């Protein structure tokens, strides 16, 4: 049985990183979080433009994303920074969500409450420094694959994505599940046209119905608009690349989900409650940064990101492994892309071998190997899904 080396948290969850998270509650605390993260070892900041003037469902979504990011086992301790206590989603609400779910240390810094920016910066720095030193005493332990929740994503897709990068990612996902782990397939728009690939593997009729209903919900919005979906899906660059219809794009995308049983249906940023090994499908946006942030908030510790054109996408707390089936993209983008599986298309390696390469990289990264993007401190892909307007 394959194992990986992770940090076992008090609630039994296992992190593949041991970050102190500087979590911004609002746009006005972003810079403070960034500054503290640049000054204190072992810290990372997560910032965003939301948390104020949002309609209720949107505010709930923001809270779910921020709390979920703090709950993710890759985070060992959290410092939440807010500028002013405002009902609806306070730093205290977030601290409550995170600490109740995990028991991990959480501190709150309120800029106004501390007597202004300078005092608040000092206080946040002190909390972060103390947490970082305490976390540095933790050691990695060998844990079974049942502790791993793998995220999968594709972005800047081209013709090679559906033929090499995505099916190889799907084989990696199957290998994780065969060893007792779990994986998430998101980007529900891109199940349109191949729902039966997912419903035929659903562990229960209820899950199959949820899959069909999820896609229908999205398709209804397109139908209600009176527009042909061809105006936006596939995108213009997809068509130049040779993708003809949404069905074709979907099939390539769903290949990342491999062939394992679908054992759960999740809402955006919703964490699986069960520990049953298998594939969990997530209703969620096609927007890349929102999609991967949604999977990080659901508890994914590692993400495999398949890309045709090459990519820089990397989540601040969830190591993001990039894979391409396009040799030219690998040549241009190897600063941030880990693996080249273009040999599949030249008949040099099998899809199974490419899947094993990705699986081996997942185990190495879960056990501490830095991704290329982590090494370059290029964590650029935190974004919160919007369901309403700013008011």
């Amino acid at each position: 049985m394959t194992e990986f080396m992770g940090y076992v948290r008090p609630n039994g969850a296992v992190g593949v990183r041991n970050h102190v998270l500087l979590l911004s509650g609002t746009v006005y605390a972003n810079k403070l979080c960034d500054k503290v993260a640049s000054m204190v070892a072992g810290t990372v900041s997560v910032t965003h433009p939301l948390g104020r003037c949002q309609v209720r469902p949107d505010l709930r979504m923001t809270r779910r994303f921020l709390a979920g990011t703090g709950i993710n086992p890759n985070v060992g301790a959290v410092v939440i920074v807010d500028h002013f206590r405002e009902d609806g989603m306070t730093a205290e609400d977030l601290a409550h969500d995170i600490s109740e779910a995990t028991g991990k240390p959480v501190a709150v810094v309120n800029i106004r409450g501390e007597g202004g920016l300078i005092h608040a910066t000092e206080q946040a720095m002190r909390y972060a420094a103390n947490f970082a030193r305490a976390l540095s005493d933790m050691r990695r332990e060998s844990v079974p694959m049942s502790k791993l929740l793998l995220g999968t994503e594709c972005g800047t897709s081209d013709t090679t994505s559906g033929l090499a990068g995505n099916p190889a990612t799907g084989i990696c996902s199957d290998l994780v599940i065969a060893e007792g782990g779990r994986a998430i397939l998101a980007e529900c728009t891109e199940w349109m046209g191949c729902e039966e690939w997912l419903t035929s593997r659903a562990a229960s009729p209820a899950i199959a119905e949820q899959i069909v209903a999820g896609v229908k919900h999205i398709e209804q919005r397109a139908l209600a608009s009176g527009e042909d979906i061809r105006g936006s899906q596939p995108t213009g660059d997809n068509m130049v690349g040779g993708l003809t219809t949404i069905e074709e794009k979907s099939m390539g995308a769903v290949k990342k989900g491999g062939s394992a049983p679908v054992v759960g249906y999740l809402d955006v940023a919703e964490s699986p409650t069960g520990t049953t090994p298998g594939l969990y499908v997530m209703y969620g946006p096609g927007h890349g940064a929102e999609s991967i942030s949604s999977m990080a908030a659901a508890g994914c510790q590692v993400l495999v990101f398949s890309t045709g054109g090459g990519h820089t996408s990397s989540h601040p707390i969830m190591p993001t492994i990039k894979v391409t089936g396009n040799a030219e993209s690998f040549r241009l983008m190897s600063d941030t892309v880990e693996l080249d599986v273009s040999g599949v298309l030249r008949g040099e390696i099998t899809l199974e071998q490419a899947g094993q390469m990705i699986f081996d990289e997942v185990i190495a990264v879960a056990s501490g190997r830095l991704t290329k993007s982590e090494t370059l401190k290029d964590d650029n892909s935190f974004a919160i899904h919007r369901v309403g307007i700013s008011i």
Partner: protein
Amino acid sequence: MKKVFVVEKSDNVGTAVGEPIGAGETVGTEGRVTDRTVVARADIPYGHKIALADIPKGAQVTKYGLSIGSALADIKAGDHVHIHNVESNRGRGDKAAQAR
């Protein structure tokens, strides 16, 4: 001989994933089907699809073993298969609006 990639045995299109293919060239196959040849009736750019068999107007164009859309016109083996001769069957708000 240049080759196109075929995902499933039942597919009636292959994808150009090597060098671009010129009209008149004989093309072989790679992937799940390795014994087919077809003469290209048009230039097939990198990443684009070529018909491996005749596909009559209204019939399904198949890749990954499933329909990726319907033929808008009679497609001959060797034709370039793309948005000029295939239409999506899904998300067609334009058709829903016509029906209303």
